[in-house]
């Protein structure tokens, strides 16, 4: 079952006089439960693609099916609901709220749950995820009191608190040293294998990409080589 299926995605920005095409017809599929790396140099369009995959942005043309639903025509509010319930984000710079405890940071997405979630249930879930990322003892610490690796693990717990179908990680190890990077990447692999969560790691780092089952290369707004790094997945190039 394909979680993500795009067909001929175009994204064009209007800059000054002319148009700047960033994505020039990207078609790809990602199956449920995959751990995929999206690789490309800066300026290749990988961030734009990630924004579209993460429902933060809309393609100029082309179709995008997420979890069987056509996304490209959804209104901003509908996309917000979708992001809240089905997509988790992990950022390079963690993006934790300062002077706010780890627990409160993890609870953030639960504030926006559509049908409402009791405070108790939300808390229970947040604590559970903090335990899974190994920060049960530090849930009342503020980001400034945590190391970079711990901060990123809080961010991962936050991405997972609403039990999403997809986790999108944008350079998740960009601000970490190699040792903690390894820890975080292992955590991604662990979550992927144990919880069966589909993961997309956006990176320009081959070491990071090496942890993925499959690497999708993007270059100049087009999909390049697809390498099966792990056991799963054949060529998904369309």
């Amino acid at each position: 079952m394909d979680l993500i299926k795009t067909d001929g995605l175009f994204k064009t920005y209007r800059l000054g006089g002319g148009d700047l095409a960033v994505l020039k017809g990207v078609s790809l599929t990602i199956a449920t439960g995959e751990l995929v790396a999206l690789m490309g140099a800066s300026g290749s369009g990988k961030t734009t693609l990630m924004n579209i995959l993460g429902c933060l942005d809309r393609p100029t043309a082309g179709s995008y099916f997420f979890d069987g639903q056509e996304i490209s025509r959804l209104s901003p509010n509908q996309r917000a609901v979708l992001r809240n319930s089905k997509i988790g984000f992990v950022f390079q710079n963690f993006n934790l709220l300062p002077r706010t405890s780890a627990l409160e940071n993890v609870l953030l997405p639960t504030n926006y749950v559509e049908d409402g979630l009791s405070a108790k249930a939300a808390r229970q879930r947040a604590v559970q995820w903090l335990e899974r990322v190994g920060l049960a003892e530090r849930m009342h610490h503020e980001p400034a009191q945590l190391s970079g690796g711990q901060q990123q693990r809080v961010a991962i717990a936050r991405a997972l608190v609403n039990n999403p179908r997809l986790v999108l990680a944008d350079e998740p190890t960009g601000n970490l040293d190699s040792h903690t990077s390894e820890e975080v990447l292992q955590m991604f692999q662990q979550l992927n294998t144990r919880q069966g969560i589909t993961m997309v790691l956006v990176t320009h780092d081959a070491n990071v990409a090496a942890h993925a089952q499959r690497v999708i290369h993007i270059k100049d707004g087009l999909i390049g080589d697809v390498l099966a790094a792990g056991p799963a997945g054949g060529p998904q190039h369309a």
Partner: protein
Amino acid sequence: MLKITATLKTAFRALRRNPLRSALTTLGIIIGIASVIAMVQIGEGSSAAIKQTFTSMGANTLIVFPGAAASGGVSFGGGSAVTLTAEDAAAIARDCPTVAAAAPMVHARLQLVRGNQNWVPQFIYGTTPAFLKIRDWPVVEGRPITNADVLGANEVCLLGQTDVRELFPSGKAVGKTILVQNVPLRVVGVLARKGANMMGMDQDDVIVLPWTTLKYRVSGSALENQNQNTAAASSSTTSTDQLYPETAQSLYPTASASEQLDTPQPVSFPNVNGIFVAVPTLAQIPQATQEITTLLRQRHHLQPGQPSDFNIRNLAEISQALGKTSTMMTNLLTGVALISLLVGGVGIMNIMLVSVTERTREIGLRMAVGAKARDILSQFVLEAMVLCLCGGLLGIIAGEGLSSLIKHMLHWPIAVSVPAIIASVAVAAGVGLIFGWYPAWKASRLDPIEALRYE
């Protein structure tokens, strides 16, 4: 509901992250609300104080004067008719529901003698104890005159401060006796100082005594002094006649000398020169006037269409000016306070704009994890409103403190104004909503992608 409490919690948390800034931002609202509260309450207090002052000056008194007498086409002017009686005064006090008190008044202009001092007071009031209540005039020393004094025409009097000064250089007047028209009057009390009235006349230059005493014992002919009609009829009245009653040409059968000295002088008309009427509030003056007119016309057996034989005067002009002045002052001060509230609101808006810029990344993150534009909008509006409401509450406390401080220092009758407090809370919330809206709207319009990338 849950969402609102969650958003409220978020707002509080965001404000707590920067306590000093939040406090300083709120300061504008605190000062604004405090000044609105203080101004309204001080305004009300000062207008009550002014009203009290004017009341003691007689702003809420009506004076009923007799109408004009006329003889052969010659009018003798207002107050010359002999139609009002002490019974009229009693009836007004008894039968008019909006009248608080009524007292008859007999005028005279007589010389007071004490030892080798003498003095002619500006005002000589022959009246009843109700007069002191109507004029809000306390007795500071001794006792007031009583109804028993009036019924017995007792030879007692109350002196004003000026007369005490003129007649008693020692300053001790109570219990002493003064002579008026050779009638000894015991000073039973001294009236409080009142100062000049609105015409600049010294109100303390006064002697108050029972009207029966003045009319029947002291100045049997005071009527004639006041009434040109009778005065014209008996032109032979001079001061020597009064000093030596034997030589006076009397209108009546002459009584023996001892009879004349021992019994009150027979006066044909038990009339009074006027009736003072107190009305509880300025607003009730028209109604009281109406009631008194109806009652007196009935008592005087006047037919419909026949002109009234009395006039009712009030100090309406003064009371109107007074009302206008105090309203204007309160409005002016409240206006100034509202401007400071506006400035406070602009301060809130400014800080909220800074806050939105500063927290662009946070907004982007919130949007990425599923916050809708509406959520962001309500979060920032609520933050501004929480700021303003906290400021409003502190401002109410500060305003109450300020007004009670003024109450203690200036002794103004300042009362806690509940409408002002309710209005302040509403205004604070309104300021938060209005001035918080634009920054919040700006925040909600951010593009999550750009907001996340914002440095």
